[in-house]
């Protein structure tokens, strides 16, 4: 379309030049080629209108479709068209006005009067000459009429010469030449028109004749009245040329007058043709300029449209968009700068992307580390909102990770009152006015319902970012450590008790037995019975103390495990056989239980202690049930002993593995402590849970270890 408009504009300008040349050439203006040129111009104008209409339609459609650059093109086209139309229209109106007035001024009244005057002057001059000839003719006719026919020729010649007439011919009424006298000797006069002769016969008659458009002749016919009434009527024809100086002037005036009259008559046509030509020129100029304005507008707007499109592409993240070069003008410089900017932006984005990837890798790395840490990590901001937490933190605190993320710590505390001391510690640390805060740590005991008491070490450390302050809470579950420390302490107490109490027991028992033996027979019956009862009480209590001390000694005894291959299911069968009378023990086990390496005697003691505990718990229960299950686990086995007994009170369940902690009325409270110790010695794990309605479940996990 761009080429079509260019070609059309070129043709338009060519036609404009041809039209301008044609109008200035009067020969060309009347020719068929001018008519063809006019037709061609009109056809071309029509084509231009169609083309421009099509362009406008297409442009408006583009605007409607919101194609980039179309609005700018429309605005530019309108501006260019307006810039072209207004001045051309002004010039056109002025030209038409000027032309009309100029044409009118050609036909000035004074010119017309002068020409008419000149023509009348010529006519009057000819009339005077005609009058002169008339007089001469009448004089000659009179003279000839009064002479005899023999004397006519000589008289005619004399008078002709006297009056300086060029030709004198006498005709009769039948156009027969009677006499001829001429300056030219060889004159053969033409036969006059019969009507002229008839007119001349009736009286004087004169006429003006023109020859070859150069000469004017006066021809007069005068009747000759003779004396003889019976003779034929003769007519004298005189021919006299008007002097060339007068004739040329008169003919010249006639010619100019005629041309002037023609021009006067055709002035409207002149106006119309000039206005038509001007209008065609105007339309050609206007339409060509409007057509050209489309090309120019597109030329201007296309780089800007490309820029807009490229900007849109960049905003969508496509930095590969490069605009082709558009010359060396300001737009070219702009495009070059834009391309440079795009390239820099692409580099910057690539670098940023790489940085982001690196950051992502670091973040993933950190998250992986945090996720695999057994230590809980929580990051708080100044507002005490949890910004980051790892899985270990939610495991230790036993709160869902989703309940923690981006939650204010205060809300969590509202939900879990358990953590209030922790929150108070954190709050006081964060809200304190200290400038250079150092890390601080504190232990907290958490007692959750139905669960063992756990001990948590909370360490808080400030992180300094640019402006925002964050805090890292490092949470460690140190329950096992504290428990181990406690067990160690209990072991030491037990060992000392065993050592300090056990030694005096035997002398006390022996002394009591000796007192009984020595004084039994020396006392009366009544005293003897009192002595015996007292000494027996001493002996019995000492025995009880011995049992208790032995148990303590057993608990405190240093570890000496003799590992052998143990088939735990068989061991359980063996132990359960001892409790066969009860018939309330059910065993569930997987098909094949692997052999583990452990101290068989100690494991037997574990099973016996657990069964004893269950038996004790079931004393007041009617439908007694004990269920032992052995299951294979990855890398080990899981032994569960479950009963539907009275269960363990909440108050002691957290410390149930500590020595001297028991819910039974009788007992040392060392059974489960010993079990716990043996399991720990085997690097196993033991947990105790309350069953929902009633009962207790003890779960022991043991590893399969090589000898």
């Amino acid at each position, binding site marked *: 379309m761009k080429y079509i408009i260019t070609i059309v504009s070129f043709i338009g300008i060519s036609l404009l030049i041809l039209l301008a040349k044609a109008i200035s050439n*009067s020969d060309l*203006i*009347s020719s068929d080629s*001018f*008519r063809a040129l*006019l*037709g061609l111009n009109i*056809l071309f104008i*029509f*084509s231009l209108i*169609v083309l421009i209409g099509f362009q406008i339609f297409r442009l408006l459609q583009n605007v409607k479709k919101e194609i980039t650059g179309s609005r700018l093109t429309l605005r530019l086209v309108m501006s260019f068209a307006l810039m072209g139309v207004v001045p051309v229209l002004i010039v056109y109106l002025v030209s038409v006005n000027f032309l009309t007035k100029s044409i009118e001024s050609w036909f000035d009244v004074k010119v017309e009067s002068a020409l008419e005057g000149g*023509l009348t002057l*010529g*006519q009057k001059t*000819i009339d005077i000459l005609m009058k002169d000839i008339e007089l001469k003719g009448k004089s000659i006719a009179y003279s000839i009429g009064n002479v005899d026919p023999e004397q006519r020729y000589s008289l005619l010649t004399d008078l002709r010469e006297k009056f300086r007439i060029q030709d004198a011919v006498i005709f009769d009424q039948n156009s027969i030449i009677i006499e001829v006298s001429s300056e030219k000797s060889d004159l053969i006069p033409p036969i006059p028109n019969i009507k002229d002769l008839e007119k001349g016969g009736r009286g004087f008659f004169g006429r*003006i004749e*023109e020859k070859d458009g150069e000469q*004017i002749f006066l021809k007069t016919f005068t009747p000759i009245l003779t004396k003889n009434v019976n003779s034929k009527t003769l007519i004298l024809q005189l021919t006299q040329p008007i002097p060339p100086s007068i004739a040329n002037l*008169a*003919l010249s*005036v*006639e010619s100019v*007058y*005629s*041309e002037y*009259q*023609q*021009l*006067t*008559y*055709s*002035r*409207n*046509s*002149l106006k*119309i*043709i000039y206005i038509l030509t001007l209008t065609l020129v105007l339309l050609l100029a206007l339409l060509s300029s409007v057509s050209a304005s489309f090309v120019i507008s597109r030329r201007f707007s296309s780089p800007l449209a490309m820029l807009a499109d490229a900007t849109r592409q960049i905003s969508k993240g496509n930095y590969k968009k490069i605009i082709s070069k558009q010359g060396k003008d300001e737009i070219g410089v702009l495009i070059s700068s834009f391309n440079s900017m795009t390239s820099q932006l692409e580099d910057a984005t690539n670098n940023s992307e790489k940085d982001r990837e690196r950051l992502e890798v670091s973040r993933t790395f950190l998250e992986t580390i945090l996720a695999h840490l057994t230590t809980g990590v929580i990051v708080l901001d100044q507002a005490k909102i949890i910004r980051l937490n790892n899985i270990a933190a939610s495991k230790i605190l036993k709160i869902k990770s989703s309940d923690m993320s981006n939650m204010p710590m205060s809300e969590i505390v509202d939900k879990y009152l358990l953590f209030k001391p922790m929150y108070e510690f954190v709050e006081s640390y964060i809200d304190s006015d200290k400038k250079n805060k150092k890390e601080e740590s504190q232990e907290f005991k958490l007692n959750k319902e139905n669960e063992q008491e756990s001990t948590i070490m909370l360490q808080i450390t400030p992180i300094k970012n640019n402006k925002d302050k964050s805090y890292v809470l490092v949470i460690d579950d140190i329950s096992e450590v504290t428990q181990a420390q406690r067990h160690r302490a209990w072991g030491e107490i037990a060992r000392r008790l065993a050592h300090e109490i056990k030694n005096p027991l035997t002398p006390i028992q022996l002394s009591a037995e000796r007192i009984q033996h020595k004084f039994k027979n020396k006392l009366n019956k009544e005293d003897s019975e009192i002595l015996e009862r007292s000494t027996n009480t001493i002996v019995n209590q000492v025995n009880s103390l011995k049992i208790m001390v032995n148990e303590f000694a057993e608990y405190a005894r240093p570890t000496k495990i003799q590992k052998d291959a143990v088939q735990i299911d068989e061991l359980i069968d063996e132990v359960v056989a001892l409790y066969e009378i009860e018939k309330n023990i059910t065993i569930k086990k997987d098909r094949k239980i692997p052999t583990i390496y452990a101290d068989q005697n100690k494991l037997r003691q574990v099973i016996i202690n657990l069964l004893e505990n269950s038996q004790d718990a079931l004393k007041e229960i009617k439908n007694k049930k004990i269920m032992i299950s052995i299951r294979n686990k990855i890398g080990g086995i899981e032994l569960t002993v479950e009963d539907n007994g009275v269960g363990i009170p909440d108050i002691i369940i957290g410390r149930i593995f500590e020595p001297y902690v028991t819910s039974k009325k009788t007992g040392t409270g060392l059974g489960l402590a010993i079990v716990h110790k043996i399991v720990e010695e085997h690097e196993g794990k033991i947990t105790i849970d309350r069953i929902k309605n009633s009962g207790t479940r003890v779960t022991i996990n043991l590893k399969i270890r090589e000898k």
Partner: protein
Amino acid sequence: MRYFKRISLIVLVALLSLILMNLYSLPDGKIVIKDMVLSKKNNINKYKMPDYLISFNQEINFDYLIINAIDKGIPLVFKVVLRVAETNEIWPTKIIKKEIRYYQIEYKALREVYKTIDINGETHEYQNILDAFEKLSKVEGFRFTAANNKNYELWLNVSLDKKKLPKPLQVNYFDTTWNMSSEKKIHKLGKLN
């Protein structure tokens, strides 16, 4: 398809222009040919075929604008086109004679006469315009030779030759005053003997 539409549009415009141009040159009844006479001359020419002479009268309806134009000195030249064709039922028409002649009327302001020149070039001058018109209404002098027992047809047209008008009048295409033409009619002459 798009180019085809454009070409079709251009062709349509061209056709419309041609139709308008033809309508523009249609006869308007200002010149009516009548009383056409075909007379046989007895002299036999070198082809041993008789000569025929065509004469006709014409009624020229000059409106006042044209009379005014004549009085203003604008010469009017009329063109007479005559074609005689030999017709045959089998063969295409064969033109045996084609002749173009002119006659004119002009006003001479100095002498105040109307000067006429007929198709044979004879000049006449009249004091009265009606006499001049009377003279122009009679056209005679077209001569052609024809064989016996053959069919002939005559095509005759009289029109004002606008190319002889002053130039401004020639290019004023909107002025129909100067559109003077007789009906373009074929006169069947039949067999001449």
